[in-house]
């Protein structure tokens, strides 16, 4: 039989999961994930998961959008097909500001959404934690903490007792 994915502990209140997350991090576990029904700053703080690369992707997307929008307008109006309309300059930069602004926002937003989805590994229909029967309540009113078996400190017996000691109502093994 292959190694389990990890041990999943169930908690009933936000305060319990925050306390448990702090304790788990303090005990030296690093391959840990929490599953909560709404975003919880306190859990992110406890597990030191605050780093995110989304802002860099958004900046890159926005700069790309600006360059692409401006480039398209300059190239098509000045180089590819210059057309005299009412004697206005071909490189009518004040007019180009508006579409360039819109493409900047468009590509920045696309980068934010698809970057976030990619960083989260979505779409990802299967995950071992879904095997735990009670896990469906993670999207309702229950809070879960999973110590994964890849963690060097992971030990099936000791980790289970440790999680029990943190006040988990249930600790289940997650099939891979």
């Amino acid at each position, binding site marked *: 039989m292959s190694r389990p994915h990890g041990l999943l502990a169930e908690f009933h*209140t*936000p*305060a319990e*999961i*925050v306390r448990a997350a702090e304790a788990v991090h303090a005990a030296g576990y690093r391959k840990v994930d*929490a*599953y*909560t*029904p*709404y*975003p*919880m700053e*306190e*859990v*992110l703080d406890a597990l030191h*998961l*605050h780093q*995110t690369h*989304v*802002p860099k992707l*958004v900046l890159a997307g926005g700069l790309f959008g600006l360059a692409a*929008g401006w480039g*398209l*307008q300059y190239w*098509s*109006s000045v180089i*590819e*097909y210059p*057309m005299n*309309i009412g004697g206005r300059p071909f490189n*009518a930069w004040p*007019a180009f500001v*508006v*579409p360039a*602004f*819109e*493409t900047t*926002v*468009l590509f*920045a*937003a*696309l980068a*934010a*959404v698809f*970057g*976030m*989805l990619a960083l*989260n*590994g*979505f*779409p*990802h*229909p299967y*995950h071992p*934690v879904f095997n735990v029967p009670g896990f*469906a309540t*993670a*999207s*309702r*009113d229950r809070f879960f903490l999973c110590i994964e078996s890849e963690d060097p400190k992971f030990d099936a017996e000791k980790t289970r007792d440790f999680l029990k000691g943190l006040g988990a109502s249930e600790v289940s093994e997650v099939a891979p």
Partner: protein
Amino acid sequence: MASRVEHPVIGPGHTFATVTDKISSLVLTTKTPIGWFVGFGIAFLLFQLFLGTVTLLLAKGVGIWGVNVPVGWGFDIINFVWWIGIGHAGTLISAILLLFRQQWRTSINRFAEAMTLFAVACAGMFPILHMGRPWVGAYWLMPYPNTMGLWPNFRSPLIWDVFAVSTYATVSALFWFVGLVPDLATLRDRSQNKVAKVIYGMLALGWRGSARHWANYETAYLILAALSTPLVVSVHTVVSFDFAVGVIPGWHATVFPPYFVAGAIYAGFAMVLTLAIPLRKAYGLEDFITMKHIENMAKVMLATSLVVAYGYLIEAFMAWYSGNTYERFMMWNRATGPYAWTYWALILCNVGVVNTLWSKRLRTSIPYLFFVSLVVSVGMWLERFVIIVTSLHRDFLPSSWGNYRGTPFDWTMFLGTIGLFLTLFFLFIRFLPVISIFEMRTLVPEAAPKEEKP
């Protein structure tokens, strides 16, 4: 929260479980309320009116509409601006109020965003169909390498409009979908029906509430809000440029961008109220859409109506102050000419009726507020009629003056888009959660772990 709270943003006694169960039950129930079928049926019939009109329009051409020289922009542009304006409240609620940490946005943002999306879809129909044969017109709207080697004229505000509106539609759709993902996971987990489970599961993309995911998610959501904020202001600004950059008396005014943006928010909040009031009644959502929400929306409507009234005042003042004969005539013609009744009806709706909301008793009377929200929608439609028709029908040369009125097909097209809008909205309230479930969870008392009593 301030200490002087008359109405909370959520009814008392709610927990994570009750909030989740209540909102998801609207979608997962096996018994669709009879009222839904009645409403959807009416909306769907109106939508057929739209399809019929479009078929005729494509067969016969835009001649079935009333537009002609000198009024080349009639109902199509009036309706376009009207719908686009309505869309603005959704983004304002979901983005700007999020950045200002206004908790009361939480229970109304989801359906306001849906409203935005559907309103923009209706708006888009008009300029596209005004081209007559839209499949031929694509080359001057969209920059793509066509066989004629032609490119759009980027010096024209109409092209700015294409970019602004299409970006707005895309970003609104993304914002809406991103907000839905955790709730789709809730529906996947709670659905008893196999097919529904698979469909919601696919749409939820495998969301499981992981802390790592929430970290990326929250950042992306905030950034989207920050991007949408200047975007929403830019959209109606660009729409106003369609007029302000032109030389027609009554259009060529610098007050147009702020005046249009305020008008858009004003019209949008009126539509949110028009939708929210029956919705909370029909589905028993009074605990989530409380009197606080209703009253705050009324206040936003009142505040933006004052900005709009300032716009009307400045339009009249600048017409006189400019010393320009044509501008002065335009204003005189607007107030006393053949369309004077539309101008005074607009003033009555947008400056008269709405100012009764200074009274708290009227502002908190649900039937009255519903009535005012409908009056505002009519008023804003008249505003666009006044700006477009009275400016165009008598411009510089009396020899080119003329009159305008919508034909029956103009009306069926307009009513038809209302049908399209309501059809989409009825489908939305049946198949997707009308209130953001995961954000409502953050509002219940048990969601504050640090403040828990020992």
